[in-house]
């Protein structure tokens, strides 16, 4: 087949792009009609135009703003990452102090009660039975300070620390709706309605960390892990897991801190 020279390639391109005047257009079209090679070139060039294709961004709700300049759900990433870490440390501090109070009170109880409390705490089944006394869905901070006896007080304090309400922004909540299965599974472990701290903290860090420079983030992650490890060691929590993962699509460290308390499991992940 005859090769079409670049001048004609450009003319055909201009024709398809709409760059020619009506007169030039007619002239080129006439020439194309006469020449089979030009016709072939025209047909092939026309095939390079992309056909309309619709995509839907499923996370629009997280972008909407409230009228009157209300709280902006979309935060500066660096600020948000820092805030997320603050949330995590805040949560851990609450765990620490509440647990310490529980421990202090526990010292005054009999050994039997102590063992029973620990056993109950380790068993999700028994733990859920405790919810018959306190409806976790209706828990608000301070509701459980007026409990009947010291034994209940300890148990309820455990419940309180698991149920301190934490705000979940639409962005945070919807982030995992569109995430990969690994992340969804991580959250599925902790996103029960009575465990908002864990849900919020894990999502906050995971969702907002991506934009930080990975070296800074890695450094932050290890600081976080070391502090967390020390804090958890002081708490003597029943199960603490730390693990580091590598995220395939970014090739950057995905550091995961997993803290399991009797009823709550926090999985804080720093990823790129």
């Amino acid at each position, binding site marked *: 087949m005859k090769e079409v020279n670049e001048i004609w*390639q*450009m003319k055909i*391109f201009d024709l398809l*792009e709409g760059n020619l005047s009506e007169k030039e257009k007619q002239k080129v079209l006439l020439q194309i009609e006469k020449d089979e090679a030009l016709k072939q070139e025209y047909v*092939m*060039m026309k*095939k*390079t*135009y*992309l*056909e*309309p*294709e*619709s*995509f*839907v*961004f499923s*996370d*629009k709700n*997280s*972008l*909407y*703003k*409230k*009228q*009157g*300049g*209300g709280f*902006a759900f*979309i*935060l*500066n*990433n660096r600020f948000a990452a820092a805030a997320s870490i603050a949330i995590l440390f805040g949560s851990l501090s609450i765990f620490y102090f509440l647990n310490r109070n529980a421990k202090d009170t526990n010292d005054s109880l009999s050994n039997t009660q102590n063992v029973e409390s620990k056993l109950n705490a380790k068993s999700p089944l028994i733990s859920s039975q405790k919810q018959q006394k306190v409806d976790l869905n209706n828990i608000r901070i301070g509701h459980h300070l007026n409990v009947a006896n010291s034994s209940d007080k300890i148990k309820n304090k455990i419940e309180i620390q698991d149920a301190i309400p934490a705000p979940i922004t639409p*962005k945070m909540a919807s982030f995992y709706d*569109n*995430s*990969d299965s690994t992340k969804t599974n991580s959250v599925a472990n902790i996103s029960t309605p009575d465990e908002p701290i864990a849900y919020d903290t894990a999502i906050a860090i995971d969702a907002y960390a*991506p*934009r930080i420079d990975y070296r800074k983030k890695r450094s932050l992650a290890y600081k976080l892990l070391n502090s967390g490890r020390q804090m958890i060691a002081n708490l003597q929590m029943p199960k603490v897991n730390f693990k580091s993962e590598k995220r*395939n*699509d970014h*090739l950057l460290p995905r550091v995961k801190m997993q803290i399991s308390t009797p009823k709550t499991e926090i999985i804080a992940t720093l990823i790129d």
Partner: protein
Amino acid sequence: MTADQFNTCVNSHSDALFRFAMKNLKDYDEAMEIVQSSFEKLWLKRNDVDYERVKSYLFATAYNAMVDYWRRNKRMVEMGDEVQNRPAENNKEYTGLKKILENALSKLPEIQRTVILLRDYEGYSYDEIGEITNLNESQVKVYIFRARQTLKTMLGNLEALL
């Protein structure tokens, strides 16, 4: 820009912006992130950005974010790491013009792919594409021409094989 106007922009442009990022990166998470961060920047700059030019601003912001992503990924590849989620995959079988074109598009240089996407999907003029990509009108036209020439050759070769 008011919150209402911003929300209108979300409704009008987020799908197109997501398509632009997805077609360029082939990475769902990254595309979502780029759309989020582009709107985030728009909101932060809402008092400076002309409402009439919001779409261009969003696409320019997304494009810059993608350039960063490509640089970051290239650095990683140079460091010897393995990229598992990169856009172009050579081992897939493509059938039908749309699939062939999709495959060919993913193999174009990033700038050529970007100008083609902006031209064909968004209907931007050369001038507008130039504003988004920091190129002049002539450069845009040349990139589009080269991209179409490359696509045409790839289509010809692939069609001949099928």
